[in-house]
């Protein structure tokens, strides 16, 4: 049962912190888009790239959580 708790805690922690990181990035991007609408396209491309980088760490943890859950 404690291993199940560890799996849940892993996913919860990584979700919280990656959400905070992505929120900072998206907020700043929105601010800059509102300030200079003519570069909105460039900002959006860079933002998606950055969000994908942050998302990757979450997903590594997700795969690790599956492995922990099935005890491989």
């Amino acid at each position, binding site marked *: 049962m404690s291993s199940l708790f560890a799996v849940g805690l892993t996913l919860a922690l990584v979700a919280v912190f990656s959400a905070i990181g992505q929120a900072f990035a998206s907020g700043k991007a929105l601010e800059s888009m509102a300030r200079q609408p003519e570069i909105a396209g460039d900002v959006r491309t860079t933002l*998606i790239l950055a969000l994908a980088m942050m998302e990757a760490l979450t*997903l*590594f943890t997700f795969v690790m959580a599956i492995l922990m*859950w099935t005890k491989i």
Partner: protein
Amino acid sequence: MYFLPATIVKAAEHATTLAAEAQSGETGLAAAMADKFEELNHVLAHLAPIDKFQIGPITITSTILNTWLLAVLLIGGCYLLTRNLDFVPKKAGQKVLEMAVEFIGSLAETVLGPKGRDYIPFVGTIFVFILVCNLAWFIPGMLPPTTDMNTTFGFAICAIIFVNYYGIKANGFRSYIKHFYNPLILMEQFTHAFSLGIRLFGNMFGEKMVATVLAILVPLIFPLPVQILGIIMGFIQAFVFTLLTITYIGDFVLGH
């Protein structure tokens, strides 16, 4: 690389034991959940690719069959749509295809500059194929090939090989090999391939897992938002894979 089916089978066994425990317990929530666990077991067993048949030492799984089917559909559809092209597009099919090419071309141009249009054939193929693989979820009875780790790592390794090939082709072998004076660049090739594969697999598998479990527990209305998110997610993941591939090409082609 074949550990994923084993993982899912283990998870299915886990669900079976949970169901047995819940059935042996007293009445109340545990007994009510027993049926749900049984269904979960059923679905988890079907999330794994099934072995269809065998050619020599190679096992052909359902993932490979689905990938071939989608590839044949794409090739046949594009062949039918581009048989007799007009200079000014009149037919709907040609308009849609030109929009797709233009989308990829403008994406490559923003990252690589005017040379970006040379890379449309490879990058566009990857985008369209991954998009179709992600959205194959909505064809009844078909498991999206991208929920299998073998497919996504196949895409990723293919992309990295082509990135290096384009690096040699654009600037010549001598200036290509100069990149590797920094040993971190060599290691980067492996981490790029790994992260591309894991990102696509994790997103698609997680999305599908969440939607499946939610559809078992609350079959009415609640899975709908998650499935709409699945459409958007399939598009975004294909876009991100393409964008990262273009960026990696840029690392070699544009120079430092």
